[in-house]
């Protein structure tokens, strides 16, 4: 085994799965040889991909049997189409039938515009499938640190997970920077201001406000260790959990809703020097976050 650090951000979907699971434990479902490609892209003269941009299957992580999915952010921005979505829905339904935990490596801009209706339905089906499997006590662990981030319907699905693991590079939101700027103007959000984008939607901010639960370095091994820990956490979803999370979110909007920038929120959380956070190394930040962050109630 190589000691060279593998960047999660740079890795492909298949490389991420290989980095997460125990060697030779992965069995793919509906693999590329099945050629279950998008029935829509050809209409637009766009090339298909044999796995439709998502790899799903069964594996073990540190000996624990899991079902696992990874989106390929470089194909169509990792966006959800009909087949792509159906593969994840099917995996989650299998998880319910088997009572087996699920790991999802997100890397998505949201719904694929060329098959938007099918993609939107897929998002709804996936969210329902996650709720149903979580009510059975199954964990759904989301990993976010890819180049496409986790946007649109992907952001909604991530919000349904039991635990989210994020790196600094991982961005989580529903509406993306360019869409906000297009609709609300550059004064509202300058999508070309990369520092603004990352401190508003990036992993550090999401960790501090309780939108993500575990912060890791951009290192595939760190994601694997965090996923193993997340799979050992208690799995509980009931009405009380949801009510507590709703109350937390109401408190959060009351507390931070009028603040204009993420650094103002970090200051309000008690961080003395919020401007130092973006340049902070992962381990230093993780220590700081443990002290000051809001914790989600595992319902998000």
């Amino acid at each position, binding site marked *: 085994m190589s000691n060279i650090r593998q960047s999660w951000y740079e890795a*492909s979907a298949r490389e991420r799965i290989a980095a997460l699971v125990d060697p030779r434990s992965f069995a793919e479902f509906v693999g590329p040889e099945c050629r279950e490609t998008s029935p829509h892209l050809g209409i637009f003269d766009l*090339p*298909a991909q*044999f796995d439709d941009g998502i790899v799903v299957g069964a594996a073990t992580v540190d000996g624990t049997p899991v079902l696992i999915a990874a989106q390929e952010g*470089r*194909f169509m921005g990792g966006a959800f189409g009909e087949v792509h979505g159906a593969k994840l829905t099917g995996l989650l339904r299998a998880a319910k039938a088997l009572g087996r935990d699920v790991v999802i490596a997100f890397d998505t801009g949201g719904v694929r515009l060329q098959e938007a209706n099918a993609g939107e339905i897929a998002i709804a089906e996936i969210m329902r499938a996650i709720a149903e499997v979580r009510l059975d006590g199954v964990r759904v662990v989301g990993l976010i640190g890819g180049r496409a981030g986790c946007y649109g319907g992907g952001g909604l699905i991530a919000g349904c997970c039991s635990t989210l693991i994020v790196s600094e590079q991982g961005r989580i939101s529903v509406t993306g920077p360019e869409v906000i700027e297009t609709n609300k103007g550059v004064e509202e959000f300058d999508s070309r201001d990369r520092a603004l984008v990352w401190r508003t939607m990036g992993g550090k901010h999401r960790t501090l406000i309780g939108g993500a639960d575990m912060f890791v370095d951009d290192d595939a091994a760190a994601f694997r260790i965090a996923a193993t820990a997340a799979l050992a956490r208690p799995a509980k979803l009931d009405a009380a959990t949801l009510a507590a999370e709703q109350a937390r979110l109401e408190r959060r909007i009351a507390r931070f809703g009028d603040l204009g920038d993420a650094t103002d929120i970090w200051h309000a959380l008690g961080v003395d020097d919020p401007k130092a956070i973006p340049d902070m190394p992962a381990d230093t930040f993780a220590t700081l976050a443990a002290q000051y962050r809001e914790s989600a109630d595992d319902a998000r």
Partner: protein
Amino acid sequence: MEILHFDIAAPVPAGGTRKMALVGVVASGNLEVLVERGDAADRCAIEISTAAHGFRDLWDAVVADFVGRRAAGGLRIAINDGGARPDTVSLRLAQGVRMIEEPEA
């Protein structure tokens, strides 16, 4: 979408026992290559799906070069092309043949 088929003589049979190998991704300037075992050990069948129309001659040259230089006999190769340059295509084909020769990871 333009679909191109090549079925050409490949003197050197591919090694290894893997059933399938997949390399690359369908992104701008990139492509995915799915390599599987075919029927005849001395033939290589390649199917290309590309949105860049009118480059049959170029594909022909790249494929002939590939089969001449690599152990491609007995392989069935399917390509989804995202507008890759010929050097990228050659690289992915070489990676695909190399991967199917390797033991299962």
